[in-house]
């Protein structure tokens, strides 16, 4: 069932500028969302790989109902930390000055 209701997506309130100008802040937001989507794609690929190890073909439902075990949860967490480390390296290094 698909709801047609649209929920608010932006919070009301002051919007401070953090870096040199608003457009740079917006770029950071876009980069982080892209990073998130890379992570989502990687996890989905991972789910498909894990399912295919045991089966010749899989269904969409197999993917949707897949439950990672504790080891896989940990593996994914570690991989996301590595992804973040790489993406945010310039900021991390700047703070280590």
């Amino acid at each position: 069932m698909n709801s047609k209701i649209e929920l608010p997506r932006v919070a009301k309130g002051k919007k401070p500028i953090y870096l040199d100008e608003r457009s740079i802040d917006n770029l950071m937001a876009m980069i982080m969302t892209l990073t998130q989507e890379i992570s989502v794609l990687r996890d989905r690929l991972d789910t498909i790989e894990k399912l295919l190890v045991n089966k010749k073909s899989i269904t969409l439902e197999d993917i949707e109902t897949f439950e990672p075990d504790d080891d896989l949860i940990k593996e994914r967490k570690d991989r996301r930390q590595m992804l973040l480390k790489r993406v945010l390296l310039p900021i991390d290094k700047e703070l280590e000055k």
Partner: protein
Amino acid sequence: MQPQPNHDESVRQDFVTDLRAFLTDEIYPKITPYYEKNVESKFIKEKNRKPKDKNEVRDLMLKDNAYQSWSLLQRLSQQMMFTSVIDTVERTLDDLIERSKKNNDLGSLKLDNKIDMPRYLTAYDIHQQPGGYHTESTEDDVSPGVVYDISLPIYSRNSMGSENDLLSQAIIGHIEKYIDNLKPEKILDMGCAIGNSTLPFAKVFPDSEIHGIDVASPCLRYAHARANALGVTAHFSQQNAEKTDFSNETFDLVTSCLFLHETSHDAVPKIINESYRLLKPGGWMIHLDVYPFHRDAIEPLYDFLKDWEVTNNNENFSGALRNMDLPKIFEDAGFSKESIEFTSAEAVAKYTKGYTGDFYLKLPIYLAQKPHRQ
């Protein structure tokens, strides 16, 4: 009552949890050494002294791109949290509303569509939840409550237990340890939102009548359905804690969890006066909230960082609440002076399901007793 995220929504939410962990564990600890080495030392060279207060630190740090990068990322992580959760709630909302209508045998729900929403809730969306606690996007909406409920574990890194109820465990723990003979017949939880901090009282005091009030109807609808789904009897009504419709001397215990700092300078004394009016003689008021300002050894950088939520996460009043003289306000309301106390309470996890225990919580509580009848 919680919706089931699909595969991608689930791992998208996991990413935000891990981003917040990365920012807290990897990036944040670097700020103090960075500040001492780069920002403070430059200031000392120029002025021959350290920055004297948080305002001077703020002037320096807001111009510093390295600090501001962390600050922006921290802010974005909050926005990404809500976006990733809203995807799930929006997709499943019809079903959530249907389920909330069916789940209503236990307790009660009383809404008031003529209530005046206080400006401190409508002027901006607290902690950047889009639409705040109160916005209704459709008839019988429960979405703000659901969004709040499923974002809490992401926000708190799964430290609140599977029923998000760790906060009031601090109040309960304190009562069990320090307040003798409190067997409340009636309990009121102010600013209860989805009732996650209200329900533990029902478990610990099974013979008492539990009430939760809030101004936000979509949260209360969800609170009532959620309580029913969890098999707990509680009475929810849409009321402003500054002035309720309960009679004088109705309750033995009046509480709130992280509520006062989401109100205003004018509202706090009114809420305390109302707490006093509603309590029976000898009854207790316990509000759990932010640490007061004077408790901290004032290190200007620490002081500045502590205010982060105020300007960056729409917690506009939390800084000002720290500076208010709450003991004076309690005393003016009529509470007995010797009972007024500020203390740190330990959250005990024994009533909290799914508590992983890797996150130790000590929470500030403010308490006072209404004098016994002479």
